[in-house]
């Protein structure tokens, strides 16, 4: 999970991700943040997250992103 948090801090350093349980509803990530996060995670884990999985609900929390990475064969 450390690499996910590193990527998040790099994209939105001003946000306190630990203080929210739904980063989308609480406005911590917007659509461009998600694309940048996907690009960073693809590189960090050597995968290509499927375009059909790039929907806001798959990026609402650390646990959900972890599950998405596992779906693509990566261990977060």
């Amino acid at each position, binding site marked *: 999970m450390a690499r996910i948090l590193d990527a998040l801090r790099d994209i939105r350093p001003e946000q306190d991700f630990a203080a929210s349980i739904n980063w989308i509803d609480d406005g911590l990530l917007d*659509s461009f943040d998600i694309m*940048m996060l996907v690009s960073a995670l693809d590189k960090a884990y050597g995968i290509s997250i499927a375009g059909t999985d790039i929907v806001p609900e798959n990026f609402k929390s650390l646990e959900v992103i972890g599950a998405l990475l596992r779906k693509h064969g990566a261990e977060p």
Partner: protein
Amino acid sequence: MKFTFRGKRVAGMLTVLPSNERTFLEDMKAFDFPEAKSMKLKTVMGFDRHRLATPETCVSDLSVFGIRYLIDRGVLQAESIDALVLVTQSPDYLMPATSNIIQGRLGLKNDVFCLDINQGCAGFLVGLMQAFLLLEQESIRQVVVINADVLSHRVSPKDKNSYPLAGDAACITIVERSADGEMIHANLKMDGSRHEALMIPAGGFRLPSTVETAELRDVGDNNWRALDHLTMNGTAVFNFVQTEVPPMIESLLRDAGLSSGDIDYFMFHQPNRFMLEKLADRMGIAHERMPNNVVEHFGNGSGATIPTNVTFNLGAQLRDQSLRLCFAGFGVGLTWASMVMNVGPLAVCDTIDYTSEGVAA
């Protein structure tokens, strides 16, 4: 909806780009957005520079310039043009049709079929399909398809979701009958129930432009735009493309009896690099076989993007040889379409600059 055509060919292609270029670094200054974040956006989306028509340059200016270029070089004969099919979302006027204006400015014969089609990102394929259908008529032997837009005039410079990818262009494709019996396969789908994902809300008869519709509003995510401006639901459009395009291409290739390996290049519409790379990954296609550099160099010219992709990336090859190309366009409407056909050798496959003085660079 599936289509097959026989005995038709593309004889030549030309892209006309406004010479006015703006860089993403210049765009950034207008955004209410941290510079470091803008630079990340630049890398991931492939934004770098784009061509924007000056405010006084309209679709007919770019189109007439391109057709004159072809006539002057003997690639086109004015008297041989039997139909002008203009695909645009930014006509010179609400009426008359801009294709009529182009015909008049060029002094073409009166025996010509002029048609404007309001289509965008899939407009190259819609235009080709219309040209092929017209060529079924005995009296029509040559059709000039024009994909042209100056939509940057209707994109807010304070909208970082849309402005960096805006680009203006006119592409001219000469379509003729062919003696060879090669089958061209195509398909087309539309879903008007999702039309709000990509639209210009004001300026038509439903919501005429007023002082109020011209007023910039805070639309969230640090973006400002007016109802007169193009608006795009990026998440909805992205998911539409990722969901609908791969099965469309699978179906097209299956109908044509081809596999992915039989295609030389996948020449797709290019909203941004990220979207194209994700499509290529999903379809198992090497990124080199699906060029994604048009937005980076010129911006997204809507219906002009696919032919710009062809003239810019394959121009040298197509002047000398034939390539089997798979085209796909997807966007406003919503509309998505694809076509597989052999293209080349072409009499012309060039990318030139427009200048108001009428001299092509």
